[in-house]
Structures are given as C-alpha cells and as structure tokens.
C-alpha cells in the first residue's frame, strides 16, 4: 500500500529546534527574543553560564565587554575557555566558544574596560535590550547603573563568591501583559451575564431534561440555576458567605436525579458544579491592581512618547467607564467541563464572541488615541492579547542601584528591618557588599591570600555598612569568617545555578512574558537557601 501523503505543513527546521521552549513563550515570544541584543560585561564563569542559556534559545545577538586576559583560574572554573585560551583576551575567547552553541546568534567582543566606555562612548550601551554585569568594582557599578537608569536600558548586576551569590535587576518600568499566572481565575460573569449568556442560561429547564441530557448540562448552567432558585427566597442578593454557599450546594443536591430506591444518581457535571460553588461564585469585579494601572498618571496623561502599554491602559479605562459598566472586557476562556460537545461549544462561542466584541471596542478607542497623538499604530492582535490578559496585567516599577550605595532612607530602614529579625539572607547581602568594599580598599578579595588575617579588615567594612544604616554590629563573626574562607573564589556550580536564573530573568525581560524577580535575589548554596528582596 502506498503511503498516504497528507498535504499538512511540516514544521520548519527552526520550529523543530526550538519546539520545547516555543511551548512556553510562543512564536511571538521567540520573535521578541530573536530581536534582543544582550550585553555581557566580564566573561567570568558566571557571565558565560548566563550567556549560554540565552544563546541556546536563540537570542538575536550578544556583545561581550571584557579587557581581562585569561588566567589558569579562569580556565578552571569557566567552561567556555580552553587551555589554549591562556593569556588571550577573555571576552573574545569565550565568545568564540559560546557562539558554537547556536550559529543563528550574532556575537561581538569589545576589548575595553567598562569605565573607559562609560567615559568615552556612553552611547555604546543605548541599543541593548539588557546589560548584564558581573565582577564590577563599587565605583564602576555605580556609574554604570546611573548611566543605564538615565538612558532606560535594563541592567542585571550579579555576584558569585564562594557558596554565595546574588543578582539585582534594575529596570525603570516593566509592564507585563502575559504574566502566565499558575492559577488563572475564571471570568464567567454569572452575577452579571451579558445578554447572549443570559439568554442561553435561561433556555434550560433542568427538571424537564431527560436523564442523558441532564448529565450533559455544563456546570455553569447548574450553578446559575441554583443561584436563581436561591435568590427567590433571598431578595435577589448574591450568595457570599459560607452558609449561603452551603445553601447553594443543597439546591444543587436537590437538582440531582434519583434512582428507583430514591438514591441520587452519580452525574459528573453535578459533582463539578458542587466543587465550583466555592471557587466560581466570586462576583465580577475590577481588581484593585488593574484599577491602579488604568488610573496611573502614565495612562491618564498620554503623550506622543507614551508606550503602547499605557495607550492600551488608557483605552481600557475608557471601556471600563463606558460600555464595561465598571468591569473589564470578557476574557473569553471557558474551562473544560463535563458537557455534550454541542453545549460546550455553544457556551464557549458565547464567551468568545463577547470577548471579541469587547476587544473590538477597546481597539477602536486605541485607534482614536493613536490618531489624536499621531503616534505609531498598535495592531488589533496586540489589543486582543492585551484584553485577553486584562485581568492579569502586571507592572514592575524599579529603583536605581545607586540608591543602595547611597543608603537612601528607604533602603536603610528596609535593610534594618530584615537585619533585626534577624534574616540570615540579608546578612549575606551585607557580606557581599562588605566584600565589594574590601576589594575597592585593598585591591583584592577578603581572604584571597590568607583568611585569618583579613577577618578584622572585613569586619571594619561590615561595621561601616551597618553604621551607615544605623544598625548594631553582628553579634558573631561567623559570616565574616566564612566570607574570608571563600577568598573571592568562584565555585562553578554556584555560578551555574545563578547563571541559569539570570539568563531566565533576562529572557523574561526581553520577551515581556512572566514576572521577573523584583528586584534582588540572594542565593546561599551551602544551606540551599534563596530569598528575594525589593530595594
């Protein structure tokens, strides 16, 4: 028998290569990644581990800035250097070996010091999607973060010392439309059914159906009918309390058919309805988080420079205030439920059509704004995506890293609060900072030569930091001692863990999907502990 040869599309080579990740961020996420250009400052083991997990999924381009010469220690901890790399430029060597991972990625190496670039050619940084830096001195990180904050380029600053590590994301403003929440809330509108939904729900008479159909009614209908029945004796209010919800459950029990012995017949859809009572009777409301967004001054005072996100927020506000009657556009997603194909598809289309109508209204408002402001067009696809995720929009407002070095009042009291608890992860943060201060004062890492003799010197650095934030000294020297034991060593597996995390966060920033860490992450590999702080 000859092979049947369907005309169906075969996947492209690229789709096959990236298949496993396209299932996480979609073709549009991939396109955004392929337009991204990442700058890495210093090709340390941590730096190259980060680049590895950004180059493999296919970022557009990478640039490494590094004026260091490869040492034996570098080769010992960095997989993207080889024996023959010794005494050559570290950035160029690691770039060569990293680009082997994915021929689709463009790569550039710049053999200059960061300070020099900041002084002579600060515009150099302006076109990067994200700048990632490791092993920078106190002074350089301050001038770099200040500059990148000014020109609005995201920065991730990372450290890896012994079993400790950290990264800090500096980003002025980062809106996320597709935040991919683990548990997406349903948007069913049972309390305020739009008219097509209203007509559909009221077209059922549960008691009239034959047993087969009875087992095929979607639980949404069952729940709605139970509430209707309940409302007759409850002056049309909405069931909110646990007691009221239990009453709804009783009504659903009464809906069940019984067998010849008077025992209720098991029907999956009725069981689903009973389970849904606790989760799906929440009244439709405008989430506070979204209300804050659409009434944010950036969404109210639009200019020609306003980003598409704020324009869409503004249009969304207009919709909520007018046609939406205080509610967001219908999401248009129906969870799977026991039902006949016909019932399910009909109900699904009712929600989908309403979602399309609502999104259309928002799109028209977007077009009006765009016309008024004479700014770039926003596509209907973008607006649809925005409306589909309107319930889960998320905005990160960042802070500049320099505020940590100047110990602004907010930063000081924030740190002090954690140190008083005491939170050992905040202690690690202080030690990473103290080690950095030690390096700028003594031109080497604490304990680089010999651990014991540096303990007192590092303690002085810790005291300075603690005085600056008006905190009492640490009762014990154990963490100071441990930092001196590390002697500035970079442990490969610690860098590899952080490398995976930082690459991941950079991809989130470039694809504008999933929520990145806001804004500081601390890792202790010795105790397998992590923490997130927001400076």
């Amino acid at each position, binding site marked *: 028998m000859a092979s049947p040869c369907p005309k169906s599309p075969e996947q492209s080579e690229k789709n096959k290569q990236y298949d*496993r990740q396209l299932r*996480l961020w979609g073709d549009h996420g991939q396109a955004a990644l392929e337009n991204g250009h990442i700058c890495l400052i210093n090709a340390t083991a941590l730096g190259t581990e980060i680049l*590895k997990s950004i180059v*493999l999924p296919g970022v557009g381009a990478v640039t490494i800035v590094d004026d260091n010469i490869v040492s034996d*220690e570098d080769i010992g901890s960095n997989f993207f250097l080889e024996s023959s790399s010794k005494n050559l430029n570290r950035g160029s060597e690691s770039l060569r070996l990293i680009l082997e991972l994915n021929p689709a990625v463009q790569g550039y190496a710049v053999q200059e010091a960061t300070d020099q670039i900041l002084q002579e050619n600060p515009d150099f940084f302006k076109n990067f999607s994200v700048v990632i830096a490791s092993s920078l001195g106190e002074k350089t990180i301050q001038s770099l973060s200040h500059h990148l904050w000014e020109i609005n380029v995201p920065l991730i600053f990372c450290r890896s010392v012994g079993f400790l590590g950290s990264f800090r994301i500096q980003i002025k403003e980062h809106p996320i439309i597709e935040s991919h929440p683990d548990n997406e809330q349903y948007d069913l509108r049972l309390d305020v059914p739009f008219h097509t939904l209203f007509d559909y729900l009221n077209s059922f008479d549960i008691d009239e159906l034959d047993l087969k159909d009875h087992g095929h009614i979607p639980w949404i209908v069952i729940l709605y009918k139970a509430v209707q029945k309940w409302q007759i004796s409850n002056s049309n209010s909405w069931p909110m309390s646990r007691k009221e919800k239990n009453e709804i459950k009783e009504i659903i029990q009464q809906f069940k058919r019984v067998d010849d012995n008077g025992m209720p017949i098991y029907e999956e859809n009725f069981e689903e309805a009973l389970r849904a009572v606790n989760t799906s009777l929440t009244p439709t409301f405008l989430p506070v988080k979204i209300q804050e967004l659409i009434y944010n001054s950036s969404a109210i005072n639009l200019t020609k420079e306003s980003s598409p996100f704020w324009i869409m927020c503004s249009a969304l506000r207009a919709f909520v205030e007018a046609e939406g009657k205080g509610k967001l556009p219908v999401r248009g997603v129906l969870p799977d*439920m026991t039902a006949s194909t016909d019932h399910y598809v009909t109900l699904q289309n009712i929600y989908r059509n309403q979602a399309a109508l609502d999104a259309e209204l928002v799109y028209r408002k977007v077009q009006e704004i765009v016309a008024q402001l004479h700014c770039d067009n926003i596509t209907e696809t973008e607006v649809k995506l925005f409306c589909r995720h309107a319930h889960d929009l998320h905005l990160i407002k960042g802070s500049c890293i320099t505020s940590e070095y100047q110990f602004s009042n907010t930063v000081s009291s924030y740190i002090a609060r954690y140190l008083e608890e005491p939170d050992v992860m905040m202690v690690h943060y202080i030690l990473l900072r103290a080690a950095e201060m030690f390096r700028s004062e003594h031109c080497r890492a604490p304990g680089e030569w010999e651990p014991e003799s540096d303990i007192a010197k590092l303690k002085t650095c810790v005291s300075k930091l603690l005085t600056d934030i008006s905190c009492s000294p640490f009762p014990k020297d154990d963490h100071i001692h441990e930092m001196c034991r590390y002697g500035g*060593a970079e442990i490969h597996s610690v860098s590899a863990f952080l490398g995976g995390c930082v*690459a991941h966060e950079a991809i989130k920033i470039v694809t504008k999907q999933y929520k990145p860490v*806001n804004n500081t992450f601390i890792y202790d590999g010795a105790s397998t502990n992590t923490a997130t702080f927001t400076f």
Partner: protein
Amino acid sequence: MAAAAVDAQMPEQQRRWHNIRKVLERSGPFCHPDFEPSSEILDFLMDSCKILVVGAGGLGCELLKDLALMGFKKIHIVDMDTIELSNLNRQFLFRKSDIGLSKAKCAVEFVNKRVPGCEAVAHHCAIQDLDEGFYRQFHIIVCGLDSIVARRWLNGMLMTLLQYNDDRSLDQSSVIPLVDGGTEGFKGNARVILPGMSACIECTLDLYPPQKTFPLCTIANTPRLPEHCIEYVKVIQWPKENPWGNATPLDGDDPQHVAWVFEKAQERATKHGITSVTYRLTQGVLKNIIPAVASTNAAIAATCATEVFKLASSCCTNMNNYMVLNMADGVYTYTFSAEKKPDCVACSNTTRILEVEADAVLMDIYEKLKEDQAYLMKNPGITTVINGRNKTLYMPSIKSIEERTRDNLKKKITELGLYNGAEILVADVTTPNTIAIKLKFSDNVDVEMSR
C-alpha cells in the same frame, strides 16, 4: 606583589583548581562537623571518587560539565538515546552535525576534550542493561531522567545494593547516595536520597503529578477540546484505518504520521465546531511532550552538582532533602524534609502486607498493585510458591504466558492456592527486584458491615 610571585610558581594544575581548593583546604564556621580541610580532598575527588550520571539529556549535559569543573574526573554517564534536533535548544554539548549519534558518547567526547584530565566514560545503553556489579562501583549516583519508571527502577537498584547487619540494622558502608533532579518547563526539583536512611523515590510517589488522561467515553462521544480530537484519532481512528498498512504502529517522531493525525483531528474538530487543533499541539499530545528550556535545566543540574560536591567532600551539610524551584513568577525555592515511609515497598526492609478480602479474585490483587499509592505498578507479574514449587499466577509482559494465565484473573485467590498469610512475588518495570508481599485476609464481618 609577594602573593603573585608565589602564584606564578605554583604548577599550572594547582592554579587551575585554585577556586575550589579554597573551600576544600580552609575550614569555616559552617562546615560539616566531620570536615577536615586538606589538599587530600581534591586528590580524592580527582583520583578516586567515582560518579555515575544517569541521563545525558538536558540535565545530564549540564551535570557532566558542572562535575568536571568541580574537580571530578572519574565520571561515567549512561543514556540509551540518540541526539535529535529538538534537543539542541538546551543540550549544549551537541551540534547539528551530531544528530543521530549517541548522547552519552558525544557528551563525554566533548567534555573530555574541553576539560583536560577529565576521564569521563560513556555507556550507550539502557540503565536496565547494567547489573549490580556495575552500579556498586560508584561513590555517588546523580540522576537527570525524564522518566518516572526509570527513576523508580534505579531507586530499586540502589536498594538491592544495601546490606543489613545480623540485627537487621543497615550496614552504612553499603549506602550509595542518589542525587536526583527533574524539570518541567519553568519548574524543577532536586533532592538528596540516602537509600535506606532517608525518603526514597517510592516513599514520595505522590509528589509526581498524575499523568493527564482523557476518558475514552469523552473522546469518543463528547469531545470538547482539541486534545480530545487528537486522542480520538490516535486511539480509535489510527488502528481502524491502518493508514500505512501492516498494522504499522503510530510513530510520534515520523512527521508523515503526525501530519496524518493532524489532518484527521482537524476534520473531526471542524465537524464538532472545535477550534485550535494545531500541528504543534498534535505533536505534543502524541509524544506527551514536556516543555523544556536551558535555564531551568542549568539551575537544577547546578543544584545537584553542588550537593554531589558536598557529599564527596563533606565541606558543608547537604540539603535536607528536597528542593522545589519555580521560575515562572520571580525565582522561588523551597526546601523541605520529605519523610521516609516506614512501610515503603522499596526502602523499608520489612515484610510488605497486602490486605485483601478472602473471596477476592486475582484481578483484585492485580488492580490493587496498579492503583494503590504504595505500589503504583505498571504491569505487575505475580507468582507464588506452592509446596516448594514456583507457580506463575499472572504474567502480563510475556505474550504467551499472558494468554496461558489470563483466566486466573477471574479465579478466586483461594482456588489458586493462596491463603491468609501466603506470600506472592511481584515483578514490575518499576523495580529491578522481585517484591515479596504477604497477603492478609480482611475480616469478613467488617466487610459485610461496611457494605
């Protein structure tokens, strides 16, 4: 600078390992109580410590690199798979020109070349092809598999290697620690298992999410989702229409097959008004594809490598004992102590007891072994010893014996010679061992009353 001068005199090899030597040759306030800093520890890691990496995929590639750069040289890696294009977005030791070659061999070749002195050895075979003698040679086993069945088998193998003293206490020198990692999309976990001492894979089977399945009646009669349409074509239409003739089985890796299913599923979806059947979804359902990305694999493998380093060097205490990682919303980890089950099938060294009704049929036992949370077996073969002779009661995995013993399933267990206190011997793909289980007849009176 004096120190720089000393540095320059150090042999190149010593300078290369300068970073990890600091944590191995210096003592610290948080070290494991048994830790004695010395240069001999690095010698042990490099010259004696034998590590087995199970799996040369997303986690395995990372593990091999991590371990080689943490000083380990005697690393073995086992994987039966060959390289595919869809591996290349994360399995960074492979290139397009390697497609079709052995993962284990390619990975080893690459790392041995990149890290001078590394003596990794590849085994291109299934883990089940290697025997007790093979597994016994390792100090630590680290596992990065995507299959739960294979993990359970390996776990069972390490239990086989345990030796017990005359007083039934565990001989600790027979314990080979297992470090296990797993990822799915932006989530993962890493754990440390001391076989016979801490919670093992079987103790915590309930931590694995149940496999998503669709009831046959839904896919046949009331399809609602695009997945239902694809399942229908796979389960019902393919065997019925036999499109390639000769009862050719459906191969999710054959693009022609996938395209055929895709087209038929689309037809079925259109007929029922269902939308969104795509080629990608079809492939995902057919092959049960788990999304995977380089970054999550890197983080989980690194966590495992750090734990291997701690086990081998005692430089810090190990995690206790299970870490979950979620990178979907920020980066979040949580470490907890998974509990050892006192009556675990695999690690408890006690007699297993299965409670059955006296009038049960063999099918009841068979179903219990498959569905009971304590066993969750795939296709258990059941034998027993009657009057000193082995008797096969049911053996599903071998076709001829299955046919011969099938009728036993309907028979009462008492008719088959089993009695209260009788022992059955069970074999399954989830374990390399035959498991002895004692039957306990539940009280008939109780049974009557509960009905």
